[in-house]
């Protein structure tokens, strides 16, 4: 009890907030997550990096191999292709998700009928597990769409999109976006609702059209939310795994293998050290991207 009262009193007075001393209990609050994070993320991560310099298959005898794994990765087309695919896929998906979510959010915050019912419907995909979504869409792409194409006489629709090495990624983008739009949508709705109404009134009086209002008022005022959505989305799509496994399992051929899939394939397929080296490289790349994003967004529009 004494703890809570001190804190509450502290918040009431601005000068006490400036004090350097922190209540030790806050460190105690930090402890469980710190321990869990260290045990579940940091330690296995370091172990993995260590093994990337060996020839281990995850079990049994192993010996040091120096940089052999890293040298081999540099010339492995499968891994290079997985990086290309993952980054290309992430960029396209981030664009699609944000454009769709932003437009939907504008629609769902304006004066329309059945607003809350529609909002609920659009958010449903978020609560369904990725692998289930993937299997349902897999069925749609493999059976429903081809038979619809056959019935309508559209020849290119008759073979499944998932069986086309050049177009399978489009199907993955569509399904991933379908699942990811609601999350971005909620953030955009929150952003749009927070824009005060008098700004629009003033614009109306000055004679701005709806399109001008959207571009000159709405867009700049939700810019911070755009940044958040892009960072969160990009981070998520780089780790793409479940939807791809359920849709194409990396195929046809090797055209849709993501980085996460190659890493896990190594874990399952007895190629532990090699894919740990791959994961280490991926980790460094991800850190670089995060630093870049942080430096680009520093100082403006942070939540």
């Amino acid at each position, binding site marked *: 009890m004494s703890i809570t009262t001190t804190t509450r009193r502290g918040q009431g007075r601005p000068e006490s907030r400036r004090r350097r001393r922190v209540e030790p209990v806050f460190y105690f609050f930090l402890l469980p997550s710190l321990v869990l994070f260290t045990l579940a993320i940091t330690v296995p991560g370091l172990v993995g990096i260590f093994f990337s310099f060996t020839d281990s298959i995850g079990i049994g005898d192993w010996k040091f191999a120096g940089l052999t794994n890293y*040298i081999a990765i540099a010339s492995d087309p499968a891994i290079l292709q997985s990086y290309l695919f993952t980054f290309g896929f992430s960029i396209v998906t981030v664009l699609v998700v944000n454009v769709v979510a932003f437009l939907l959010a504008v629609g769902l915050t304006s004066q329309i009928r059945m607003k809350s019912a529609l909002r609920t419907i659009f958010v449903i995909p978020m609560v369904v597990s990725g692998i289930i979504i993937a299997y349902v869409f897999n069925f749609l792409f493999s059976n429903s769409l081809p038979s619809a194409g056959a019935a309508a006489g559209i020849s290119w629709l008759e073979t499944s999109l998932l069986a086309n090495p050049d177009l399978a990624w489009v199907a993955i983008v569509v399904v991933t976006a379908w699942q990811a739009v609601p999350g971005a949508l909620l953030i955009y709705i929150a952003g749009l609702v927070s824009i005060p109404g008098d700004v629009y009134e003033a614009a109306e009086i000055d004679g701005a059209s709806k399109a001008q209002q959207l571009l000159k008022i709405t867009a700049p005022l939700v810019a911070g939310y755009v940044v958040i959505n892009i960072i969160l989305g990009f981070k998520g799509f780089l780790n793409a795994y479940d939807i791809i496994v359920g849709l194409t399992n990396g195929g046809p051929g090797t*055209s849709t293998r993501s980085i996460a899939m190659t890493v896990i394939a190594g874990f399952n*397929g007895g190629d532990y050290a090699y894919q740990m080296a791959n994961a280490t490289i991926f980790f460094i790349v991800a850190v670089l991207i995060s630093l870049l994003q942080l430096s680009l967004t520093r100082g403006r529009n942070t939540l």
Partner: protein
Amino acid sequence: MSLKLTRTLRMAVLALCLPLLAGLLSGCTGDSEKETIRFTFSKREAIGFMTKLVADYNASQDRTEVVLDTSGVDVVSASFVRGNPPDIALANYNMETARFVQRGALSDLSGTQASTRIRKDLQPLMDQYGSYPDRTSALPYSIMASSVIYNKEIFAAHGVEVPKTWAELLAACEALKAAGVTPFYATWKDDWTVAQGWFDYSVGGEVDTIDFFEKIAEAGTEVGPDSPASFQQDFEQPVEKMLKLAGTYVNKDAASRGYGDGNLAFAQGKAAMYLQGPWAFSEIAKTAPDLQLGTFPLPMTENPDDLKVRANVDLAAWIPEDSKHKDAARDFLEYLYQPEIIEGYNKSQLGFTPTVEAEAAPDPRIEGMVEYYEKGRVYQGPSVLVPRTIPIMNYTQALVLGADPAATFRTLDADWARLAFRQ
């Protein structure tokens, strides 16, 4: 306040520990009565059979409680990495299991009674994957021979004979196609069906796989157009033939059909031939229990003496070195190898029993392969001899979907050389 905190802390620690302690205690009482061993088996067509067998064993004695774990191959590999492997397994013997063998992760079974009854002439099928010095790391349990499955009713209705040469095969396909029958039902959506059927039957029917893999293992990092053997030089010809069949004589929607779709369609008589192993029979029988089916080796040359069937060790038994219940596991292993059990299993799954006393009791559906199996005219499928870290199944899928064979095999050669470089 600090006093209060420590008291809270102490309470919290106590609250956390109590359930743990309770768990430990109850664990102890359980162990003293029966030793529990985890038995991994994930061949989905036979899970029903194995569940009953395990229940029988558990009822027959009161020392050991066997728990059946059907969670699958990938989970087993991962469990080794986590240091928590199963106590005993009956699993497909392939490159991945072989890696456990080569690194000494499996215990020696040479002292078991079961090991003395294994047919010696089957050893090459096991040794092809490598071994660990002075150990019998795994024992074969079920040998599967696979080749073309054909619908006898359709063949008879159109007067088509079982082909013995490549030319006869093409003629048979033409005759069926002219009569409006789809010659082959293909399921290219599942890449493994392309690898084990289309690719393995074509390549294995023409290339001497034992010799080929010995040569490229020796060439190692040098594998390429100038080495004694390479995928580019040796595989292109059979794969051209495979692509001829794949391009002309399959169902139109092959690219979007999977294994389950294929079993259903073939059971409904939608095609005359199906490139699957005997495991598909039980699935087909679910839809069409009385369908007349047979098997024949895919002819790839003009010489009937070249005919061979694909054979592999579908199940091998092994006990990990890290198991804490090796003795109990070995008792269960001996039980599994009792003649009526091992033969009963293989009969139910249309496999061949690898023990000396077992007699071939062929089901009419696999009769077409017995002759080749007994004369040893078998080959191990090339797709299972490539380590799984090379995505060979994806490559074969890409081939039937139109990838350039020359470029694909160049990639495969480079993958092989790279693997040799880092191991």
